[in-house]
């Protein structure tokens, strides 16, 4: 098989893994902020 296949599969997968982690980091941060907001709303209702 052509060497380009192996290079693309390696570099492409690494780029995907890095992008997925960046998305996960942003999602985690948004989740934490939502959690704080929800708790604040609950306390306001009480």
């Amino acid at each position: 098989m052509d060497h380009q296949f192996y290079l693309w599969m390696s570099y492409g997968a690494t780029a995907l893994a890095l992008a997925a982690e960046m998305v996960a980091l942003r999602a985690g941060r948004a989740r934490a902020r939502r959690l704080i907001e929800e708790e604040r709303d609950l306390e306001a209702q009480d």
Partner: protein
Amino acid sequence: MNFYYFSSPATFYRLAGTMAPFFFAAALATGIAGLYMGFVVAPTDAQQGEVYRVIFIHVPAAWMSMFAYFVMACYGAISLTFNTRLAAMMARAIAPTGAMFTFVALWTGSFWGRPTWGTYWVWDARITSELVLLFLYLGFIALANAFEDPRRGDRAAALLAIIGVVNLPIIYFSVQWWNTLHQGSSVSFKGTSMHVAMLWAMLLMAISFWMYTIGAALVRCRTIILERERRAQWVRAMT
């Protein structure tokens, strides 16, 4: 300098927020420079042809997988010894990035192995011990999140991280201790057998991965701090 000041989650949260963009910028700059050196400046390998260029991510990812685990275990040991919250949070923050680099090392290794050895996978000592490292990372993440009380999860996961350190010399010396298909180190403290451009490309990519790991760990640690300290006054005042 008072280090106890920086071990406060509130102080560290702000400090990490300031530092993380610089680490990501450094990762991007060194990554671009490394890719330029690796694909434009570095010559074609006489034996392996163009496919050898996989090493510019495979080797730095493998280095990072071991180094991140060592740092994670150190944070685990600090959290167990001194009962510090921030060290346990940092250990948790490093684990997913370490696991990702371990996966990248295994994945890129298999796509380098196919054209050079003729196979994607072999149960060779180096590759198997690197796979064990991936399982250790996944075990750490699972164990840390298995308890309702996060502090109990921290302690259990820290213990696993410390025990797992024994795997690091096994990975590193496996090519010397056993007869493996995986080649020995091309770079050591004694010198290198590589072309200087290849070496620079690899080192720049290693610095890039290192900077990225620190940046990602800082961002993740900030999220963990927010989750755990969400009832604290300083978090409420900030958000």
